[in-house]
């Protein structure tokens, strides 16, 4: 750019401001995220650890430091272990079939297909539905006396199952709700990864006479392994934190026994629900105890996620 001499001083002043703008503004632009995360994400996380070392409730003014007492009480609390068992059981029952189904569905969608968009929209529809709606609807479907599912089962000689009452049946019912809501979502994530796999691989395999299933096993799964690992980890973390489903299922199936217990016998109380019960639904508002349970839950999440990471990381095509 050519400029008149007159304009020079003005340009210099502007260039100081210009440099400042270049240096500082990027930080200003990313600051809102980091500030909010520190205030409402990181701080509560760290503070939970501090609270967990105290006898700390909403009702009393004073908080006494008691070290690891909350943790040792927890480890001998039968309800805590019951909740741990339920979490793992519901987690496995909902996640394993869900992810296998999702990979298979993605595989079916990953070809030339008419009504492609229609199928995708239909598959994702459950995910748009709120968890409250899902549980209300499914509580009706799983009703003992007049539920549609028992009615269908009665054709096969079964029926009148009180789904919410038993441990196994309630875990199954909850897993169905979770699967219904998330399978399509995960299928789309897998589909996105599958579309990046080079077409030539499939063409060559088809020429060699490999069946669709062999192609899925030998080509697709090895090629999308990073995505599989990612989805497994995210699902695991999600499954370890299940709370809304059992909370609402306890309410709308009329199980009784207090809304946060996960059924009268705590047959479907998850870890997160246990934390909620101790912190908010219990008349003592025992924040210290609930915080300790939160941290043990976090520990469990990390361990389970790590184990799953190691397993999925080692799975190679053809081994599944």
């Amino acid at each position, binding site marked *: *750019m050519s400029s008149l001499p007159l304009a020079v001083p003005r340009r210099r002043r502007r260039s100081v401001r210009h440099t400042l703008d270049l240096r500082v*503004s990027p930080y200003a*632009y*990313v600051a*809102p*995220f*980091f500030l*909010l*995360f520190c205030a409402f*994400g990181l701080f*509560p*996380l760290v503070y*939970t650890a501090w609270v967990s070392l105290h006898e700390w409730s909403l009702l009393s003014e004073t908080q006494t430091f008691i070290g690891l007492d909350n943790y040792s009480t927890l480890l001998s609390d039968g309800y805590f272990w019951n909740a741990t068992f339920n979490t793992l059981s519901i987690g496995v029952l909902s996640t394993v079939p869900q992810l296998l189904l999702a990979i298979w*569905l993605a595989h*079916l969608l990953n070809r030339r297909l008419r009504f492609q968009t229609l*199928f*995708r*929209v*239909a*598959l*994702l*529809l*459950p995910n*748009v*539905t*709120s*968890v*409250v*709606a*899902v549980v*209300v*609807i499914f509580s*009706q*479907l799983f009703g003992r*006396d*007049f539920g*549609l599912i028992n009615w269908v089962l009665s054709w096969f000689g079964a029926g009148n199952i009180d789904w919410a009452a038993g441990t196994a049946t309630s875990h199954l019912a909850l897993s169905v709700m979770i699967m*219904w809501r998330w399978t*399509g*979502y995960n299928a*789309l994530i897998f589909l*996105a*990864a599958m579309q*990046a796999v080079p077409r030539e691989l499939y063409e060559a395999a088809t020429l060699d006479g490999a069946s669709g299933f062999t192609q899925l096993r030998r080509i697709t799964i090895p090629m999308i392994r990073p995505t599989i690992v990612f989805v497994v980890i995210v699902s695991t973390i999600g499954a370890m*934190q299940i709370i*809304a489903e059992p909370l*609402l299922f306890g*309410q*709308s199936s009329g199980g009784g026994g207090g*809304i946060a217990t996960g059924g009268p016998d705590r047959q479907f109380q998850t870890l*997160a629900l246990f*934390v909620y019960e101790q*912190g*908010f639904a219990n008349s003592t508002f025992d*924040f210290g105890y609930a*915080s300790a349970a*939160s*941290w043990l*839950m*976090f520990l469990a999440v990390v361990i389970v996620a790590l184990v799953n990471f190691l397993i999925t990381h080692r799975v190679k095509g053809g081994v599944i």
Partner: protein
Amino acid sequence: MRLRYLTLTAVAFFSAFPLYYSVVVASRHNSALAQVPPPLIPGGNFFANVSRVFDTVPFGLALVNSVIVAGSISIAVMFFSTLAGFAFAKLKFRGRNVMLVITVATMMVPAQLGIIPLYMLMVKLEWTGTNYALIVPALVNAFGVFFMTQYLSRALPTELLEAGRVDGCSTWGLFWHVVLPAARPAAAVLGMLTFMSAWNDYFWPLVVLNPDNPTVQVALSTLASGYVNDYVLGLAGTAIGTLPLVAVFALFGRQIIGGIMQGAVKG
């Protein structure tokens, strides 16, 4: 080949059927629930049931609250995520890569872990029972930042920004005149995704709000718990709380799905 269509149609059916069935029940009288076989087509009682919902819980207030909360969260997320995404995708500054990695890593932190101190914080701020408790912590999130970073680094030509600089634009001017218009398609998808998840959020509103001033989801759960045997009422509420969102999704499904697939691949 034919089996593939058959399977996908069956899956699509199972995806849609529970929603359809909830409308069937919501449009009937309570006595229909005790029928064997259960009714499979809608009846004529839908609006009567809906008006019962409004009589039973403050559903109008809940709708207003949900629109305010989800609306302001989505606008803020769109704005702040585009801002941060612009910085991460196109500006040079020290520590950029580290900060981006931290951003992505925060997506892995389970939010529930901090729910107790977060609640205590809200008590201190005297925000419990108000919409601030829902809006302020959600004004920007890692997913949005990451999503816009990915989009802008691909879709926004650096030459365009350089041209703007030559014309004497400040960084803010670039953001306002070049980045925002270019970001519009992705921001719209992000806005819809955010609106949906804010609308559907249940647990945190349940903890921090009180039943007199609920969001739609909290009102629905009151409806489902207080009237155990009145499934019709619960499902009528569910239908009016859910169907608007389903309608939006049916209209913009293609874009929303594209957004989800785009944002999640590299997560």
